């Protein structure tokens, strides 16, 4: 079983109960209540079903209830397996071709949907939605907060790393999962807030009502006056042949499998994109014991925070700049990925192609806002604002302030007199900043017997936990910009060697060094992986960017419980100790390419519309032949007609129109309509899903 049993940050929930079920008639096993898709992934199943159009393998893609690609026939009914909890005794089958509609002809008890009423419907309970909810509730507005996950916090609940930002304002230094809990507790405790967790909004209607699929079972209509869209963002798909194979998915889906469900869904991954999402996904893979063959970035520089990138590189993961994925291939799932350098027009240079044996390609080459409900509200004339990634892609810290600000502008729309705290705007401006300058630092050899911190943080980003955790206040930001973008510095005295800064730094970029006799020094290094080494063992030390410095000897290791971080005290020559900040995690073997590159297919075969399996080539030909200037006409090829509602293909269409020689600015966009995800017809009429003849508990009813 591919389960994560050892993880530096996460531990499997206690008391999980085994669920025995059958998959395509064969005995299978997972845990009661986990998504069926995760149970199958843990069994190593990547190909769930075959597409009705061409038999192409289908499997987990969004892991998020959105796309239907993981559909399976469960006890006779086709369901999205990623949002269907596993129960003992289930009969789970692949969908080959179109699923049959089960014969269930007994009359059903039907009822009208329950109605809730509120002033503001908040869609999405991530950092911005939660912050907005708190602000709205403080203003006395009644709020229904609907979120499609069981645990509020949005993507924070998948983040095992410590966050950047300001400790005072947005929980910097705290891990995402813990921030989620704090924000969620605060919002839930307020009067006037109704939380519908595990309950996606499936439609917005002109009569200012929203359809919510409560607990994925009951259709509720929520009447509201205004809506705040904080639905987050999703990874943009990328066009390369093989982009539709099971095993190619977004970083979010990967984090869901690995960090939420503790499924070791991959053995070795390749990451496409070096933004913070890609860098962090690579880091999470390593923490889960999954190898990372490399990170591929089409730009000439790393796109995310340098501290993140350095941390990954130090762990032994190469970042390939000016490079892209040429093709992914495999029989029924990803087996190989081919990467090549790009020329100045970002076209791959095939002579530079290298093929890596990986079973997963994580696409993290940019996010698209989940702003469908905002656009739908605007089209329907419903008062609405967006917050968080749905408004603008940025860090969670910025989203918290964005949520508060959005809440106030919505309150204004509703005629409330509100004063905007200008400091929020200023703070948000800083938190959403792109990284600033990189300032080289030369470490100074410490004096004998005294501790001092060494900062391996050289790029300006909004971050300050080291300054706030220092009990002697001897770390401060060097005032250059006058914001938390400034880099930290040590006052030169009063370091007690308490290691708080080492443990708290989200970038793992602070060490403590103390001079010893004979040109030696001790260095305390932060480490977030399993640390099986015993005192006395030799560790190969690395500098900030992963260059080997030489060996040191582990003097002691301490696990800091608050920050869930190992602190390794290593003795090494002073010259090495002041430069050391990492210990290699992954062997070079994991990053080797095959002796010869292997790729075959043409770029035109890349899939644009996954649901209906439509390629770039088909669309480009159609645009030219029919002189298309309205994206809705691509529906003739069934583009955007699938289960996901064009969530994956729509962001790719401008690129495809350009390829067909058409300026996307001249093209009318796809019309949005309810529903945002598929819902059984019976749910709207209050009919229990499943086959009524089955005994209670087996048909998915409560």
């Amino acid at each position, binding site marked *: 079983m591919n389960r994560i049993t050892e993880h530096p940050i996460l531990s499997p929930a206690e008391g999980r109960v085994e669920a025995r079920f059958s998959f395509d008639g064969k005995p299978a096993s997972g845990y009661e209540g986990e998504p069926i898709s995760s149970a199958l992934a843990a069994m190593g199943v990547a190909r769930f079903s075959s597409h*009705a159009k061409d038999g192409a393998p289908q499997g987990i893609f969004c892991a998020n209830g959105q796309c*239907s690609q993981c559909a399976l026939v469960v006890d006779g*009914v*086709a369901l999205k397996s990623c949002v269907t909890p596993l129960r003992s005794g289930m009969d789970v089958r692949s969908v080959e*071709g*179109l*699923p*049959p*509609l*089960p*014969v*269930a*002809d*007994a*009359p*059903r008890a*039907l009822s*009208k*949907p329950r109605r809730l009423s509120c002033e503001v419907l908040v869609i999405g309970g991530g950092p911005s939605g939660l912050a907005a909810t708190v602000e709205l509730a403080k203003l006395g507005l009644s709020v229904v907060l609907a979120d499609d996950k069981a645990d509020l916090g949005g993507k924070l609940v998948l983040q095992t790393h410590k966050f950047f930002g300001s400790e005072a304002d947005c929980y910097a230094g705290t891990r995402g999962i813990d921030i989620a809990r704090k924000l969620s507790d605060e919002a839930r405790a307020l009067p006037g807030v109704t939380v519908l967790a595990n309950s996606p909004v499936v*439609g917005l*209607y*002109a*009569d200012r*009502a*929203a*359809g919510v699929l409560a607990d994925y079972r009951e*259709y509720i*209509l929520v009447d509201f006056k205004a809506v705040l869209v904080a639905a987050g963002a999703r990874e943009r798909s990328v066009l390369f042949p093989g982009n539709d194979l099971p095993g190619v998915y977004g970083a979010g889906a990967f984090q869901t499998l690995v960090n939420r469900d503790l499924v070791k869904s991959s053995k070795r991954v390749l990451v496409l994109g070096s933004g913070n999402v890609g860098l962090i996904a690579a880091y999470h893979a390593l923490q889960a014991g999954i190898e990372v063959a490399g990170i591929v970035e089409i730009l000439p520089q790393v796109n995310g925070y340098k501290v993140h990138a350095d941390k990954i590189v130090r762990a032994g993961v190469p970042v390939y700049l000016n490079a892209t994925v040429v093709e992914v291939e495999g029989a029924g799932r990803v087996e190989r990925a081919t990467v090549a350098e790009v020329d100045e027009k970002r076209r791959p240079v095939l002579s530079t192609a290298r093929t890596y044996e990986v079973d997963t390609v994580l696409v993290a080459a940019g996010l698209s806002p989940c702003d469908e409900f905002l656009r739908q509200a605007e*089209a*329907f*004339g419903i008062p609405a604002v967006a917050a968080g990634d749905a408004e603008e892609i940025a860090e969670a810290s910025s989203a918290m302030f964005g949520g508060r600000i959005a809440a106030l502008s919505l309150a204004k729309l509703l005629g409330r007199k509100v004063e905007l705290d200008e400091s929020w705007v200023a703070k948000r401006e800083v938190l959403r900043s792109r990284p600033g300058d990189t300032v080289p630092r030369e470490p100074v050899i410490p004096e004998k017997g005294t501790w001092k911190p060494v900062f391996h943080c050289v790029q300006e980003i909004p971050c300050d936990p080291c300054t706030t955790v220092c009990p002697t206040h001897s770390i401060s930001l060097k005032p250059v910009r006058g914001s938390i973008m400034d880099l930290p510095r040590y006052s030169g005295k009063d370091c007690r060697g308490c290691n708080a800064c080492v443990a708290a730094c989200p970038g793992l970029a602070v060490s403590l060094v103390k001079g010893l006799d004979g040109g030696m020094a001790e260095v305390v290094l932060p480490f977030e992986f399993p640390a099986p080494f015993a005192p006395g063992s030799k560790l190969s030390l690395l500098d900030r960017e992963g260059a080997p410095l030489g060996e040191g000897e582990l003097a002691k290791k301490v696990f800091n419980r608050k920050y869930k971080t190992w602190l390794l005290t290593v003795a090494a020559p002073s010259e090495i100790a002041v430069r050391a900040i990492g210990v290699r995690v992954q062997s070079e073997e994991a990053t080797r390419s095959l002796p010869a590159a292997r790729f075959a297919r043409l770029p035109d075969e890349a899939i644009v519309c996954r649901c209906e399996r439509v390629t770039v080539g088909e669309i480009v030909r159609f645009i030219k*032949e*029919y*002189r*298309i*200037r*309205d994206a*809705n*006409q691509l*529906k*003739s090829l069934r583009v955007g007609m699938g*289960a996901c*509602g064009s969530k994956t293909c729509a962001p790719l269409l401008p690129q495809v129109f350009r390829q067909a020689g058409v300026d996307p600015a001249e093209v*009318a966009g796809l019309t949005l*309509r*309810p*529903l945002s995800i*598929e*819902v*059984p*017809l*019976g*749910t*709207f*009429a209050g*009919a229990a*899903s*499943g*086959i*009524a003849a089955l005994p209670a508990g087996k048909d998915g009813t409560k």
Partner: protein
Amino acid sequence: MKSDVVIVGAGSVGLPLAYYLAKRGLKVVVLEKEASWGRGQNRAAIGGIRATHSDRAKIRIAQESLAIVPELETVHGFHVEWKRGGYLFVAYDETRENAFRELLSVQKAAGLGIDWIDGASVAELVPGIRREGLRGGTWSPGDGSASPLLVASAFYKLALDAGVDFRFGEAVTGFDREGRRALRARTALDVYEADRFVNAAGADASRVAELLGETLPVHPDSHEAGVTEPVESFLGPMVVDIIPDAESGNYYYYQIASGQIVFCITPKPQAWGTDCRSTSSFLPLVARRMIELQPRLANVKVRRTWRGLYPMTPDGLPVVGYSRGAENVLIAAGMCGQGFMLGPGLGKILAEETLGGAGEYGFIFEELSPYRAFEGMELLK
């Protein structure tokens, strides 16, 4: 620039008409206010094509359509999801049964393949249908369905290849006239001179007619519709239940060639106007009625919903004929929600008429005259 015919509206009627005119060598310009073709009522049509109407004109036009649409596949090589699944009007009470049986004589006289079938036969066509109270229904196996989107795209492409000049994003803002003739149509971007003009503007037809000083009795109401995921084929015909209840009039659904189920309902009271925004009442209402009729539909997943317009006339029949105020303007509007199924046949007939060869269709122009009395209401609306 001068053309033979300017058609206002690139929709269910305008597209086939443009093609048939251009195919006969006429220079045709189509002015369309939307960004592309078929984006008015066509995009909201659910795809049924039946000849089983209650009046001669519509029967005749739809019979043409039923001949033309399959040929888009067999002759022209387009994939339009044509399916000859038939239409089934179900009867659960005496009133409906009597009405259907009465209609049969008219329909049979027009040569339609339609007959009364009993409850057991209905249940064979609609597996799992509620048997309690089911008296039977009228069944017309020759009727069918196709994708409005694909049919529109096929006619657009045929028209394009035949030399039709499409102008999208151009609403007609006025006409230049000389006596009882229209000379030019104006849009914000250009002026289009022609010998003849056709008002095939669907729900916008009354506005276009007003630009010529005429009043058309065409007023849209709206209906919501939806489509499900595709499932294995299990349902042949279009199922129509015209029994009203407290919240709705008739509703109908069928399984299209791709396996998806498309459904639509007439709300009660009718929603007059051009508002096409989705409402929260549609899905709970239509779901209840469909599941009450055929319980197994409870498990099929709804994918998308939309709302479209039925450009209605007072008697439920289209308006086809030349304007009295502007004698070279042909009106082809007021399709009452049946533009998709009437458009291909009507386009072909009107093209022949334009060229002076439609003597055999004289009764159509009489029955559908814009200047008729507009009395009564068609039963199978």
